[in-house]
């Protein structure tokens, strides 16, 4: 179920030592998780995120709150109007981790339309893997998205740039530089034979998909490649075409999927 009450996590974990203000938002979300358990709506204080940024921000704020008693005191004093202080009990997991926990065989059993013949390059970016100890998998050799895509029947294309940065928020004030970073990743995926790129983070999605127009203007050899959330690929494989919302992707992945016999 969706948390009955939640706020934006802030999207970036604040690294400045004296910056406590930016930890309030994620800690408040973690408190809501405990409140949801107390209200009897869920059994365990576990919160699942789809977004790599939420995952990273919540998880790191949780660690900070549990281990830095000074900051914890300051956060508690600012959050005085809450029902009570956050107890540090919430666990943050990514949907990929939950799927792994359920087991890839179980996921495979749900597949109605295997993504056969579709070559997918999984792209992790930064926040799903780094820093070590806060990622969904080993930061050097992640396998979790590969395992999922294989369970969906797809062919995985392993690209060396799968954990390179897409340019992140540089896309706001240095969009050409961000576009160049994304271009290198996408070009490598194409060169290695991938049909599409799969990812989790909405900022990566913006830089690597929505910015392809700019990338094409900056780099004449760029041909374009569809980028999809891993959840969209799951929906497609599970036979939930409408839920995949493929009409919202830019560039449109449907012509290519049609070619592969995966779209009507």
């Amino acid at each position, binding site marked *: 179920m969706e948390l009955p*009450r*939640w*706020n*934006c996590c*802030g999207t970036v974990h604040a690294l400045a030592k004296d910056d406590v*203000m*930016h930890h*309030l*938002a994620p800690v*408040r979300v973690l408190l809501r998780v405990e409140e949801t358990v107390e209200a009897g709506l869920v059994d365990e204080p576990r919160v699942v995120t789809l977004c790599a940024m939420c995952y990273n921000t919540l998880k790191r704020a949780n660690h900070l709150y549990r281990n830095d008693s000074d900051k914890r005191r300051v956060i508690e004093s*600012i*959050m005085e*109007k*809450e029902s009570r202080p956050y107890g540090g009990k919430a666990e943050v997991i990514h949907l990929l981790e939950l799927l792994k926990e359920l087991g890839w065989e179980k996921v495979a059993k749900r597949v109605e339309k295997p993504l056969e013949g579709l070559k997918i390059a999984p792209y992790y970016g930064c926040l799903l893997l780094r820093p070590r100890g806060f990622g969904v998998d080993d930061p050097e050799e992640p396998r979790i998205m590969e395992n999922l895509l294989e369970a969906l029947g797809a062919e995985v294309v392993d690209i060396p740039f799968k954990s390179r940065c897409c340019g992140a928020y540089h896309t706001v004030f240095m969009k050409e530089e961000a576009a160049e970073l994304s271009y290198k990743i996408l070009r490598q995926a194409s060169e290695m034979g991938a049909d599409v790129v799969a990812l989790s983070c909405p900022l990566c999605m913006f830089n690597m998909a929505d910015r392809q127009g700019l990338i094409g203007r900056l780099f004449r050899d760029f041909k374009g490649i569809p980028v999809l959330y891993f959840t969209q690929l799951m929906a497609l494989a599970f036979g939930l075409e409408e839920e995949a919302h493929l009409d919202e992707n830019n560039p449109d992945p449907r012509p290519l999927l049609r070619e592969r016999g995966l779209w009507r």
Partner: protein
Amino acid sequence: MEKEGKMVTIYVMGKKHRVPAGLTIMKAMEYAGYQLRRGVGCRGGFCGACATLYRVKGSYKLQAALACQKVVEDGMYIVQIPFTPAEKKLYDIEKIRPTPNVFVEHFPEITRCLSCNTCTKACPQDLMVMDYVQAALRGDIEKVVELSFDCIACGLCAIRCPAEIVPYQVAQLARRLYSKYILGLSEEVEKRVAEVEEGKFDEELEQLKRLPPEELRKRYESREIRV
């Protein structure tokens, strides 16, 4: 002269006054000799005109209240905020639509919200202001309406917000969109307006106009109150 025990000391814009305990800030100011022209309205906690900031001696916390509702405390430093400087965003309700991005388009500064909850702490109506700003951020118009329904636009949230958001304007946009595009026209109101225009109540009104004050008062006091 009243007994010393029943008096408290307050500071209105730095000036010390002894006032009877138990008065609201507004009445205490009037007791001290202030003639209120701005920062006063309905005196009943509904209009939002008497926004007030204060600190109590010995506390670092800056607090907010309505002067007509908050009772004075000993050692209170008080200043009234009769007006909130805020840019009035203009939009044509006929042209805009209840889309998820409508709030960010008109109030891009809401993306600066850190969830610090200062606005909620400042709200004299005890609304969950931060939660409705967050709902606006994700385009949940109905949630904004639900959480902001009792807003009186006193402006205290906007004065206190460190991200310089003007929450009550965001909420107003939500309620306007909600009533125009989601709730739609109310049949009852349409019907009643038509009745008024047809003159259904004219005669009754004329009768009331001719009544002597004592009779009017009697009727007022014995009126039927439906909740």
